[in-house]
């Protein structure tokens, strides 16, 4: 994961691994202040990590730890105060919105529509960045949108109205729109919020499969420690705007560390899969 271990390998292999690094967050910081004269209300301190093709990265941390801000920086919606974020070697926040949308898809917590639209209209919006504003959708766009719906198991929702489907179904259609963008990088902000357990598992299984099949790099912000442990290849642990640790779940899920970050007593076990499980111990 780190460049040090890559360099220790044979040169050819290390070159191949380096080319597989898709997202590179380099010493990125950010400060938010309502008034420039005052001290910043909120900061993200220098954060670095890298993610390869097909990898799922989970950003974990309590409320106000800077998770969502970090995601906004990666999406290019915010420009970093210092440092830079590279996607395949390009600095993300200097790209035009159109170029960014061809490479990065963002799935937000809630997507509200002003006027009713059908699911297929919504998914076709993902093709916008690949055409020009005035053209009509091509047959190719339609095929891509249909595939995207099928990939998330939502083909039968195609003709339904977006305001008449359940939260879990809606989340899948939103994910399908992101897939229709054919991105390199898929960013999700608390995608499992408001979903029941089955829908959460369904969504993350889909993400796992999609990341493997299409070689997407996925970055997901979540509160769900156990889902992150189960599905993530890498975890970025944040606390009060600082990035504490980066690494695979087994290295991050240590009882003392998590207790200190989340300010609650808990226990960590390792299941048969080798993945850690967290149990919160209330009242102890």
């Amino acid at each position, binding site marked *: 994961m780190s460049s040090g271990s890559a360099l220790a390998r044979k040169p050819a292999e290390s070159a191949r691994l380096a080319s597989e690094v898709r997202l590179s967050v380099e010493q990125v910081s950010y400060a938010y202040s309502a008034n420039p004269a005052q001290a910043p209300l909120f900061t993200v301190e220098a954060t670095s990590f890298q993610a390869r093709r097909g990898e799922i990265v989970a950003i974990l941390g309590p409320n106000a730890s800077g998770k969502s801000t970090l995601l906004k920086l990666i999406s290019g919606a915010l420009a970093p105060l210092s440092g830079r974020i590279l996607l395949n070697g390009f600095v993300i926040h200097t790209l035009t919105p159109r170029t960014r949308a061809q490479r990065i898809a963002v799935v*937000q917590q809630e997507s509200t529509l*002003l006027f009713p639209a059908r699911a297929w209209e919504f998914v076709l*919006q993902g093709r916008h960045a690949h055409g020009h504003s005035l053209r009509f*959708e091509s047959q190719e766009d339609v095929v891509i949108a*249909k595939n995207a719906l099928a990939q998330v198991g939502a083909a039968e929702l195609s003709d339904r109205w977006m305001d008449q489907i359940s939260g879990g179904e809606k989340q899948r259609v939103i994910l399908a729109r992101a897939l229709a963008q054919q991105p390199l990088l898929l960013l999700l902000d608390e995608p499992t919020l408001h979903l029941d357990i089955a829908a959460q598992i369904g969504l993350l299984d889909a993400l796992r499969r999609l990341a493997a099949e299409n070689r997407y790099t996925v970055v997901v912000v979540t509160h769900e420690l156990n889902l992150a442990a189960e599905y993530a290849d890498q975890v970025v642990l944040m606390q009060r705007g600082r990035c504490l640790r980066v690494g695979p779940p087994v290295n991050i899920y240590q009882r003392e560390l998590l207790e200190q970050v989340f300010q609650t007593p808990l226990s960590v076990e390792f299941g048969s899969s080798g993945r850690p499980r967290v149990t919160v111990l209330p009242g102890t």
Partner: protein
Amino acid sequence: MRPLTLRRLLLQCSMLAVILFVVVVIALKFGAVPVSLYALGRDLLRVVFGQSSQISSDYGLIVVNIRLPRILLGITVGASLSVAGTSFQALLRNPLADPYVLGVSMGASLGAILALILEPHLTISPLFAALLTPLGAFLGAAATITAVYFLGRREGQLDSATLLLGGVIISSFLSAIIMFLMNTLSGNLRGLSFWLMGDLSTPLQKSAYWFLGIGFLLATGAIYTTAADLNMLLAGEKEAMHLGVDVPRVRLVVYIAASVLTGLAVSVSGAIGYVGLIVPHAMRFIFGSDHRTLLPTAALGGAIALVFADTLARTVVAPTEVSVGAVTAVVGAPLFIYLLRRRLP
């Protein structure tokens, strides 16, 4: 999955064009002086073939010199207001936005009046003097929509209710200033009811129709280049940006073009309300909310609605007339209340 095709778009537009033609014929036929369909057809053909001089009957002159220009005015004003309303609704993410409700029309009225007051004191060429009123109306419209936009923002987000209230209050404030100006100043300022309610009865010079028509086409064309972007803006500015929309550019183009449309319409017809609110909703109900369809259908629908409303304004209390703005308000205000009850949480 049934994505929009050019063929379907043209089909929908030609359907509306046929309806517009029928409404225009009705508007030409009815009025204080009834005209037979035969005489109507004969006189119109003569106009088309450039033989206007052969039209001799008084009826023919009424049709060609009075009703036809008024109908052309109704078509452009109705289409302009309707396209402006559609744009404001998408950009402000507010289904109740409309140039009149937001006070933009009143801002354009005040701008036009100020230009008319200023005009005699300026030494400029007659051509530029003629452009001064629409320019004043445009500046008034642009200033008002900017003010309403910032009034409607709370913690960086547009708040539907605050935005509408802001528009209503600004509208009432501006109309008070208009009344004050009209009561204290005299001159060639037309009537108070023209600026506050709007009507289509004031004939224009021939060149003004060209100016109006070209202005309408340019501004609507500019908005149409952002049609697909507007679809995405319905889900919010952030989401639109992540889908590849250059939000600041679209916002600038559409605000300026919609202000141009409102300014043009108001400078020749005063503040006619609710066309920009009701017509886009009707078209959305029939054709869906894709702006690539909605913008042209709303333009045609606005033309149909205003020509029809003006025919009513001319005929219901014939031989006198009511302001067409009164007709649109009588129909539009109850529909506004219906939409308000249904849409806002």
